[in-house]
């Protein structure tokens, strides 16, 4: 008879007394130690979403294009011609904070497995990262390690990493964020789900051997806050082997395409425990797992260790007896272990065996369905204010040199070019990359079709801190706007909701508000949430991160050749500002950099205007009227204009019509601009100040350029949308005036030097 586990053991594993009592009720008495270990993991925050499930039900999750919504390894969206895209984002924050290189690497490995588990070939990765300020040596170490880990794993797999975002705020100092997003292409009739079926079918473990690495890794690390024991947690971080994963991708996709497996599931957090219990509960069947048959790295492992090990690069497949020989042949060809470790039964029980002895016997459905649900009473935090800041000359003295203020903003780590990071990623492998990193969106073509797909990810944590509802809503609007700027139609969202400790009322309030903001924006923009991840307990020493609901969005093209980017293209083109004429100090990068403050209330997105603007912007791009389009985000209008100038001489080159420019990519030969901002008085929120009109932030603003002769037709397409001609693309300086009065003139080369200055901060 197996050892029985007491309440004391349950508490040590992080369960509550109530949860232990519930387990005893389900099990009809005290559970065995293995059973308790399984419950503790499956009912951990990371695996059970106990604090978030009731709130997440607010999301729109279906639509005509949605083939698979939340609840599987990844969401799947129909993108036309029989093609579909599987996408998901997942956090690997805690492992990365402990060991940045391997933490980030295995984050990529895990999310990629989620994609190919469903039968999709992973075609793009993007990573959304948050760190403390770069002035701290440890933050530079974390950044270097995380980016290096992503590059190491993703490059080896041959999956292009085409973008992402990196921000630095003090709130992430003790708890960096690493949100890894991946997507893959799949034929819409070839989807495989993680549902066990067919009594008597084999349960097969494919891939790496199982060791003690990562015992309680992601699942335990992600379910508690950090304190001084951070260093001791290092052994909980798994070590990745991208070479084995690359072989797994090829072998598993072959197994799926040849229909040699009934279903498949990857082993992620909580390892064999979560994969086997999920597969059996979804299939309404039982599974017998013989833990003693699992190939091990260390001979003396206990059954509970085998069941919860988070060794990487492992897959679980359900295979019929007729096909097992073929499955073995494929795995052998790829030099992968392939071991039958159990069978599908009609018992509806998850039974774990150890040399013939039954060490666990759990009703699979109840393990899955009866995990606890907790709603913390939410409390609006005291720091939240209802009014914007008063921008007066004492609290916010206007700068003397606006040109210098601009270069200072361009050099700010949150705005400066992240070329240092993305040049470490292979962004061109697989021969589908249309738009390389450094732009509003990543764009890929779909081979053998005219179609394309685009991805963006966005979240301004500072805005979400000041108002989680407005900030989260704005993150969705911005992700969609970035796709619209590239000419793509946004169709679906995957989200990674990073928050502090949900047992605290203030954190729970932030969470509820953010979910509401996302839900409203997704409804307005018609972009259902198809997959995602919640990461709680992002706190160190009781200090929570900024609420950071990262939005990853998919866009589609019927004709990918329509895509445009933000770079100014030609002398004489007319620069037009589309959308809202507004600019706010509150939560802006300018407020932080120039005044060292984070305060006020961020503006609310007008979703009606946003939808109209994006619709018309896309219509103009589809009519081939625009030569460039770029979103105004951090740093406001002036930074956006500067970025368009800088991009004109710093891009890949393939997008230029002029063959000479195409050949050289216009390296270092930038286009400037001459713009007049009109009157600061007409800009909402700018309080009559030129500096705010330049650097203040507001949603729903896009800068486009158009050849002068096409201004008329553009007007017709835009019909009634707020817009204003700012000036022209000309020369090699950025010159800004206001009602004819010069504000500044700066050489684009100088702007470029500031914008590319991130490496100097890392030295």
């Amino acid at each position: 008879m197996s050892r029985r586990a007491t309440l004391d053991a349950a508490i040590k594993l992080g369960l509550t007394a109530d949860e232990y009592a519930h387990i005893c009720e389900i099990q009809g008495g005290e559970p065995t130690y293995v059973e308790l270990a399984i419950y503790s993991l499956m009912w951990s925050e990371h695996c059970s979403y106990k604090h978030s499930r009731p709130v997440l039900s607010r999301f729109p999750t279906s639509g005509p294009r949605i083939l698979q919504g939340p609840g599987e390894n990844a969401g799947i969206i129909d993108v036309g011609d029989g093609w579909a895209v599987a996408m998901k984002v997942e956090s690997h924050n805690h492992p990365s904070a402990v060991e940045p290189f391997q933490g980030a690497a295995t984050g990529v490995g895990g999310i990629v497995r989620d994609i190919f588990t469903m039968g999709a070939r992973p075609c793009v990765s993007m990573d959304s990262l948050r760190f403390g300020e770069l002035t701290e040596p440890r933050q530079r170490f974390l950044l270097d390690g995380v980016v290096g880990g992503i590059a190491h794993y993703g490059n080896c797999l041959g999956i292009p990493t085409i973008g992402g975002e990196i921000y630095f705020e003090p709130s992430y100092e003790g708890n960096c964020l690493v949100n890894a997003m991946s997507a893959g292409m799949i034929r819409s009739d070839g989807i495989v789900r993680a549902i066990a079926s067919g009594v008597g079918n084999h349960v097969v473990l494919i891939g790496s051997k199982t060791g003690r690495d990562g015992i309680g890794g992601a699942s335990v690390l992600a379910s508690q806050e950090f304190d001084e024991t951070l260093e001791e947690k290092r052994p909980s971080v798994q070590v990745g082997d991208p070479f084995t994963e690359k072989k797994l991708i090829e072998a598993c996709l072959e197994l799926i395409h040849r229909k040699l497996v009934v279903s498949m599931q990857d082993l992620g957090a909580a390892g064999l425990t979560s994969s086997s219990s999920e597969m059996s509960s979804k299939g309404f069947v039982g599974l017998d797992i013989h833990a003693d048959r699992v190939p091990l790295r260390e001979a003396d492992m206990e059954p509970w260790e085998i069941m919860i090990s988070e060794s990487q690069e492992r897959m679980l497949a359900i295979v019929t007896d007729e096909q097992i020989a073929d499955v073995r042949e494929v795995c052998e060809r790829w030099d992968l272990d392939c071991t039958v470790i159990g069978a599908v039964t009609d018992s509806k029980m998850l039974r774990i065996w150890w040399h013939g002895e039954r060490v666990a016997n759990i009703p699979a459905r109840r393990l899955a369905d009866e995990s606890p649900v907790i709603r913390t009473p939410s409390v609006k935090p005291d720091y939240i204010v209802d009014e914007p800041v008063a921008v007066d000359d004492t609290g916010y003295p206007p700068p003397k040199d606006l040109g210098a203020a601009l270069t200072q903003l361009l050099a700010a780590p949150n705005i400066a070019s992240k070329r240092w990071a993305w040049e470490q990623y292979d962004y061109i492998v697989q021969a589908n990359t249309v738009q390389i990193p450094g732009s509003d969106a990543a764009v890929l073509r779909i081979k053998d079709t005219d179609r394309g797909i685009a991805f963006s990810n966005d979240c301004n944590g500072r805005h979400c801190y000041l108002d989680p509802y407005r900030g989260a809503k704005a993150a969705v609007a911005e992700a969609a706007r970035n796709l619209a700027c590239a000419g793509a139609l946004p169709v679906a969202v995957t989200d990674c909701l990073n928050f502090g400790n949900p047992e605290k009322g203030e954190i729970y309030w932030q969470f509820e508000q953010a979910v509401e903001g996302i839900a409203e924006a997704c409804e307005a923009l018609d972009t259902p949430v198809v997959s995602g991840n919640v990461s709680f307990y992002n706190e160190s020493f009781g200090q929570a991160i900024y609420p950071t609901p990262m939005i990853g969005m998919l866009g589609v093209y019927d004709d990918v050749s329509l895509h445009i980017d933000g770079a100014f293209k030609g002398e004489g083109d007319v620069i037009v500002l589309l959308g809202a004429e507004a600019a706010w100090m509150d939560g802006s990068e300018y407020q932080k950099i120039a005044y060292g403050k984070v305060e006020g209330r961020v503006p609310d997105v007008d979703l009606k205007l946003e939808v109209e603007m994006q619709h018309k912007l896309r219509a103009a791009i589809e009519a081939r009227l625009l030569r460039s389009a770029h979103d105004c985000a951090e740093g406001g209008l002036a930074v956006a204009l500067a970025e368009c100038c800088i991009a004109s001489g710093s891009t890949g080159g393939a997008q230029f019509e002029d063959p000479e420019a195409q050949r050289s990519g216009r390296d270092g030969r930038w286009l400037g601009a001459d713009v007049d901002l009109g009157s600061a008085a007409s800009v909402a929120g700018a309080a009559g100040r030129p500096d705010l009109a330049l650097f203040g932030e507001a949603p729903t603003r896009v800068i486009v350029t158009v050849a002068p002769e096409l201004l008329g037709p553009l007007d017709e397409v835009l019909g009634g949308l707020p817009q204003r001609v700012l000036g022209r693309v000309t020369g090699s300086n950025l010159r800004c005036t206001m009602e004819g009065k010069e504000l500044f003139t700066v050489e684009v080369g100088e702007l470029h030097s500031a914008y590319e200055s991130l490496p100097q901060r890392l030295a």
Partner: protein
Amino acid sequence: MRSAPVRFGVVVFPGSNCDADSYHAVSTFPGASAQYLWHKDTDLKDVQAVILPGGFSYGDYLRCGAIARFSPIMQSVIDFAESGGLVMGICNGFQTLVEAGLLPGGLIRNTGLKFVCRYVNLRVETTDTPFTGACEKGELLRIVVKHNEGNYTVDADTLSSMKANDQIVLRYVDAAGEQAEGANPNGALDDIAGVCNEARNVFGMMPHPENSVEAGLAGGTDGRKLFQSIIDAVLRTAEVRS
């Protein structure tokens, strides 16, 4: 009469990840066809040119290409090369050719100590190879590099004999076509991006021409000339023989 398509073989090692791109690149030429050559096989399937693709063969946990060089298919590739067959190694393929002793020199870690994925300008230093025959001498090609170990090095004596034999095929240069600070992404000796053997039938380069064969993609089309050169060279040889 139209000639039969030139047959390319693309070797697949476990961990190769530009094999499909190389195959695809060849397929964009009406005058060429591609097939995969599996690392455990020894049969080159009667191909007329072999591509060793980029990637991380066997994980590259040891020196890059050091394991791939011992795979069964490589013995056949070595025999093929020694009998005059055309072999092109791209990135990890270049590293493997160097490990196999088919090309001189070695490829060590980038001086920046980081993986680098970047557009570079390549100057065609010689057109007297089956891989650059369709180019003009001094022509610039804009192609992407992506590697961690692309820093070409070779001893001084070998370098001078390589120069004397016109074996330096491609160099990293700036947009004006000059060797310059900042144009070399990895610290390679003498800005060397690609070399051939003395017999001129084996060629290795670090940049990835297979990602520069289609208009409308970020990689541009400058890689086409290298593939076209191979096709032309094979067809010329076939004509001479017939």
